């Protein structure tokens, strides 16, 4: 298949690109909209907001989620906040500055046009959410409050205590509920997408499995939106919810959608360290904690087992403040994570020793409590402190928190053009599921912004434009491609149930996660990646021979669900390593140990790698074809990122 990656990004002055592009779009007459059926998979910020908005416009929307309610999508767990260029603080913020910070923060591996649109829409998001009744934090005068976040020198982050994601998602969920009541949206909870239906090269529906009855069936539509989140659970241990998976986007990839920058996975610096080998997930502590908490480790390895209260000021190494005096504890996530790994690898980590290394650094609020009082700190972070205490049994008002980086977000995802359409016409990807806006590193409080920008303000336009221009023949359940897609899913389920081996899905998943964490995690090198590319196919082969799944396909069967998702992670994991190996430079989160500046930072190679790597499935998972979308920077000149 000859694929030409056409970004369809507008040219000309960046400030007016989105407006001009919108004006050039075709529209669907309000009276005709109900004749179009749109499938939206996922009910997080992008999917929930998108389905609600399309419903409000009058389209006939089918909304799917694997959870028991659309309100539970993993956007709900985002704690810290959402960026918007409102400049309410009069501290020099602007749409252009948010655009600039995001392109720079992404280490010059994102498309300028998309990022500018995101910055532009950020202000509308806050208006929308406030009107819905999202209870953002306020100042005593009744106006909206802001806090600072990593990678920015202005205060532009809006928040609702430590539950910003929850409140934004409930806003979208309630908007969706309103449309369900109005009859424009039909909701399918506990329903998992198993495959994409492509007819004559165009996306026309999905195959789903009802997770209670086990029923496999086809749903047909005029367009399909995948808003199914990221693939961080490929690592087994991540901050993602247990059910987060790659199946929807991976199945679309196998049907022809290119997968972009799969190796760009974000490791969040402030998570609670793992406690033992039974660990089922890692819990994130909001990055906003770095506003007031100071990160340190002992200067001397001998002090690492001491009570931190007994370590004198002169014996503490506030390494982020030391190395990056102007950004201090608020350096971007990739840098904060790597520095934590470095000090722990040097033997200066704290907390329990696992596999011979103490993987933890202190995040200390002693000075902030002294300065602001415990009450103020409780007001700002009370629920986070409570959560930390519940999990670790330690009181962070008295003892410094211990934190360590964990997989958190995936910048990579399905390749999409400026219209959020994948390389399969009619198949769109929104939110974390696409690759589009964050380059090689996402700044804090930008995921919520992107999810809602895509959902409320981009999907409604691009879907209309597509539907108004597409010539779609009628397709029903009897179409050969539809029947085949359903039969393939049924066969795959039978196969997973019938292997009759000895190992559980979780045991395979932990092994896969270890391979990827060790070789394609916070630091990568050619040798390690090559080793991983030997190990993963071998593990996958064992998986298909030695997997153990009990029960049947015709009932609620959580082991079967895990197995199906893992089968796709097994393939994606290999592509991640292949992508990381092919990108022989460092950039953002992608830290190739062969390419490091004298100061220990990621050394980009713009000459050879200033492109989006988009991988095509060829029928053989181990032999994908690389396509390149060159990136041009007309406005933000690529420089070595410096946060010193």
């Amino acid at each position, binding site marked *: 298949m000859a694929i030409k990656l056409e970004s369809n990004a507008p040219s000309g002055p960046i400030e007016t690109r989105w407006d001009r592009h919108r004006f050039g779009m075709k529209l669907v007459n309000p009276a005709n909209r109900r004749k179009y059926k749109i499938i939206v998979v996922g009910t997080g910020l992008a999917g929930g907001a998108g389905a609600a908005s399309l419903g409000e416009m009058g389209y006939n929307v089918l909304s799917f989620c694997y959870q028991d309610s659309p309100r539970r999508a993993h956007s709900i767990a985002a704690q810290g906040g959402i960026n918007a260029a409102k400049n309410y603080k009069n501290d020099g913020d602007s749409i252009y500055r948010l655009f600039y910070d995001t392109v720079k923060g992404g280490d010059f591996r994102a498309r300028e046009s998309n990022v500018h649109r995101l910055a532009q829409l950020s202000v509308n998001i806050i208006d929308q959410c406030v009107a819905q009744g999202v209870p953002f934090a306020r100042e005593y005068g009744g106006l909206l409050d802001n806090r600072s976040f990593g990678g920015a020198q202005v205060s532009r982050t809006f928040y609702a205590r430590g539950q910003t994601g929850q409140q934004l998602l409930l806003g979208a969920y309630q908007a969706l509920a*309103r449309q369900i009541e109005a009859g424009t949206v039909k909701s399918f909870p506990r329903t998992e997408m198993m495959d994409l239906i492509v007819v004559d090269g165009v996306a026309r529906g999905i195959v789903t499995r009802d997770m209670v009855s086990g029923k496999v069936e086809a749903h047909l539509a005029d367009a399909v939106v995948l808003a199914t989140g990221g693939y961080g659970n490929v690592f087994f241990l991540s901050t993602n919810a247990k059910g987060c998976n790659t199946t929807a986007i991976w199945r679309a990839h196998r049907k022809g959608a290119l997968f972009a920058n799969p190796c760009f996975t974000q490791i969040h610096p402030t998570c609670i360290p793992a406690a033992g080998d*039974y660990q089922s997930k890692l819990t994130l502590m909001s990055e906003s904690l770095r506003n007031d908490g100071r990160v340190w480790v002992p200067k001397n390895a001998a002090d690492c087992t001491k009570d931190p209260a007994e370590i004198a000021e002169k014996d503490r190494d506030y390494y982020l403040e030391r190395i990056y005096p102007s950004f201090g504890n608020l350096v971007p996530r990739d840098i904060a994570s790597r520095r934590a790994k470095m000090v722990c690898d040097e033997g200066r980590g704290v907390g329990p020793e696992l596999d011979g290394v103490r993987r933890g650094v202190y995040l200390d609020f002693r000075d902030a409590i002294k300065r602001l009082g415990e009450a103020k700190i409780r007001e700002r972070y009370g629920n986070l402190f409570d959560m930390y205490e519940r999990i670790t049994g330690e009181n962070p008002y008295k003892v410094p928190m211990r934190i360590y980086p964990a997989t958190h977000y995936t910048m990579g995802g399905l390749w999409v053009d400026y219209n959020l359409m994948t390389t399969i016409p009619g198949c769109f990807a929104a939110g974390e599921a696409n690759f589009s806006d964050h380059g090689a590193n996402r700044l804090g409080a930008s995921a919520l912004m992107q999810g809602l920008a895509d959902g409320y303000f981009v999907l409604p336009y691009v879907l209309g434009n597509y539907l108004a221009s597409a010539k779609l023949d009628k397709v029903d359940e009897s179409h050969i491609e539809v029947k085949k897609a359903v039969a393939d899913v049924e066969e795959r389920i039978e196969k997973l149930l019938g292997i009759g081996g000895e190992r559980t899905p979780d045991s395979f998943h932990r092994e896969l996660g270890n391979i990827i964490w060790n070789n394609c995690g916070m630091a990568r090198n050619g040798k390690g990646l090559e080793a991983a590319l030997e190990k993963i196919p071998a593990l996958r082969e064992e998986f298909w021979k030695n997997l153990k799944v009990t029960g049947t396909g015709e009932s609620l069967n959580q082991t079967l669900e895990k197995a199906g998702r893992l089968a796709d992670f097994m393939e994606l994991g290999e592509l991640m390593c292949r992508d990381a190996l092919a990108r022989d430079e460092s950039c953002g989160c992608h830290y190739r140990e062969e390419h490091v500046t004298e100061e220990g930072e990621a050394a980009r190679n713009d000459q050879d790698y200033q492109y989006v790597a988009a991988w095509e499935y060829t029928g053989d998972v181990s032999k994908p074809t690389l396509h390149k979308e060159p990136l041009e920077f007309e406005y933000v000149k690529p420089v070595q990122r410096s946060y010193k």
Partner: protein
Amino acid sequence: MSKNLNLTLHVWRQKGQSDVGGFETYKAPDISEHMSFLEMLDVVNERLLADGKEPIAFDSDCREGICGMCGLVINGVPHGPNSATTTCQLHMRHFNDGDEISIEPWRAHAFPVLRDLVVDRAAFDRIIQAGGYVSVNAGAAPEANGLPVPKPDAEKAMDAAACIGCGACVAACPNASAMLFVAAKAAHLGLLPQGQVERYERVKKMVAQMDAEGFGHCTNHYECMAACPKEISVEFIARLNRDLIRATVVEKELEEKTGGAG
């Protein structure tokens, strides 16, 4: 130093909605005190699977206390012995070696059991669909700072909005009432200026849907507040009742004004 526990579990097993179901007993030796309650069940399930048996089905997703998907009745208490703690954030350090632990699903007419410890809470979604929102379409919003909200109101609204929709309030209530859930949403929106236009209509519709779903009536036991992992206060129920009375009065006045002429 961390210690390990040897436990005996009595777990509700039920194949499907029409199955009768009953308790099964499982030994759970060698459980680290640092495990979460659900990690303990993961370990038990891995052992069951290794023996070729079907693992215990239970709901969970975020495992950090915010998605509201998990929820077990542990020794008769929804979400277990710790206050302000979801099942996923309950840790085994709160149990003792040799403990016998009973584990059941939420029990309420409006929450039918789907399998083992998994229940159907779609009734909650239908209550929100009945009116738990502010009617504003994407694109129609005015400038966010155009309407200041007094900080105490915003804070109180946030206290109510913290509800995760887990259903522990229903499971804890002797009447299986959903009043705390409904009251929290009504208060969240009713305390904010953005929610005033539909305030009384919203309350009427949500309460009517709650009744239609088969939840029981509130008789002020306050078990809901004790079980709520987000510590939502019953004062919101009082507020809901006041709004409901006012809603009925407003409706009457409206009827009188329009004279029912149509």
